[in-house]
């Protein structure tokens, strides 16, 4: 399939001349003014070059260039200015806005084809390289996520879990963090940041690797002494993360993991551990993981207890039976609890199969 080039000029004669030149090699699309051009560019992802007149009715060429800059499209699509103007100030502005070359009227056809063809080829190679690099970065990030997930799963296995717990925590964290971010401007976060927090949440219990089996797998209530030992998994988790090679994971994910590891058992009223932090002294992501962790712990069977049904778990969380949480996080949790519960049921059914 041919790629498309867009010719933008209010005069049909000028458009036809260029169309004639390129019709064999490309699918030629024509626009009579800047507004039409922008609509066409937005609707067609296969446009690989734009030939743009500057002086046109409705919307001129400079406005088109400005808009292509604003949207970043100028970095992917070469724009050639076609003009009869010798106005140096205007041409300089066009170059400054990212135009790659000036094609003067009257056209010199033999030169135009070579000049435009060369630059299209250059952009094609550049865009391919950008795709390859983005693809590699994406693969690295996925590999990184998988490594983190595998590490967390190994720890969960020791805790007699299937590894599904960490995946559920990640899912709940992603959903709840997004909801909190959408509902409360003071907790607003970028999507990419939320994705990193989701990955980081997987390692929240990494410190459990340092807890003896006799406590970790005890099929009954822990004694106060045993509970004190259990509590150190938060601090031990940070020690383990601190000893990891620096480049084993994304640095941002590392920072979130460290914070979540240490503070996912803190509570809104300061009665959590290990530092007894209060309110928003605890980061919002650690607060979100805390709710996710408690919900999943309540609704999943453990060696020391059966699973609670989702309604009971929600009630227990709202009543503060597992410690107090940020009311705003709870409000977001209650807004989406049906969705979380449905996903939890689906996952449990899948596990049972």
């Amino acid at each position: 399939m041919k790629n498309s080039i867009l010719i933008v000029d209010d005069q049909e004669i000028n458009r036809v001349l260029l169309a004639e030149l390129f019709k064999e090699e490309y699918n030629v699309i024509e626009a009579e003014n800047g507004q039409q051009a922008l609509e066409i560019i937005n609707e067609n992802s296969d446009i690989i070059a734009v030939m743009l007149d500057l002086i046109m009715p409705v919307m001129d060429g400079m406005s088109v260039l400005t808009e292509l800059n604003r949207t970043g499209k100028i970095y992917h699509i070469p724009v050639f200015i076609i003009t009869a103007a010798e106005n140096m100030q205007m041409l300089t502005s066009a170059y400054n806005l990212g135009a790659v070359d000036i094609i003067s009227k009257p056209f010199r056809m033999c030169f135009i084809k070579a000049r435009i063809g060369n630059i299209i080829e250059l952009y094609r190679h550049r865009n391919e390289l950008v795709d390859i690099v983005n693809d590699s970065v994406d693969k690295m990030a996925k590999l990184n996520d998988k490594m983190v997930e595998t590490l967390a799963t190994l720890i969960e296995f020791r805790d007699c879990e299937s590894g599904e717990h960490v995946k559920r925590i990640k899912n709940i964290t992603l959903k709840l963090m997004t909801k909190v971010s959408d509902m409360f401007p003071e907790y607003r976060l970028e999507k990419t940041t939320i994705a990193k927090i989701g990955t980081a949440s997987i390692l929240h219990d990494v410190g459990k690797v340092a807890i003896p089996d006799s406590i970790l797998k005890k099929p009954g209530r822990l004694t106060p002494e045993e509970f004190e030992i259990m509590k150190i998994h938060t601090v031990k988790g940070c020690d383990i993360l601190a000893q990891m090679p620096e480049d084993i994971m994304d640095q941002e994910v590392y920072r979130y993991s460290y914070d979540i590891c240490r503070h996912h058992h803190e509570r809104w009223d300061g009665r959590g551990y290990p530092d007894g932090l209060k309110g928003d002294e605890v980061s919002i992501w650690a607060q979100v993981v805390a709710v996710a962790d408690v919900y999943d712990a309540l609704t999943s069977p453990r060696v020391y207890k059966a699973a609670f049904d989702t309604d009971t778990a929600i009630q227990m969380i709202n009543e503060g039976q597992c410690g107090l949480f940020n009311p705003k996080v709870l409000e977001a949790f209650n807004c989406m609890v049906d969705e979380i519960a449905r996903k939890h049921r689906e996952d449990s059914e899948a596990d049972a199969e």
Partner: protein
Amino acid sequence: MGLIEDIALIGADTVDGLTRFMDNSALYERMLKKLPQVIEDNPVMPFVRSGDLETALSNAHTLKGVVGNLSLTPLYNNYTEAVNLFRSGETAKAEELLESTLEIQRQFVECIKKYD
């Protein structure tokens, strides 16, 4: 004799024009036949006379590009000069040049219309 030969007699550089249209004489003729409408849509002198020099310049600029691409050399030279005069503020000289251009422009238009 055909349209291309006829406009050559008035001064068009049809060798250059045919080269630009990749020796496609039918396409060249088809585009030449659009010129009268382009001239009608982009009048210059009425705007000069009414003092709307911005529109006069814009239309002269449009015609310069079109007649250049059609290789109508006498018109192209005059519109190029007129645009330069407008830009340097020499409006009276531009007006005088455009007045003198009207006759050769009329000849091109009449010649083209004969083939419509």
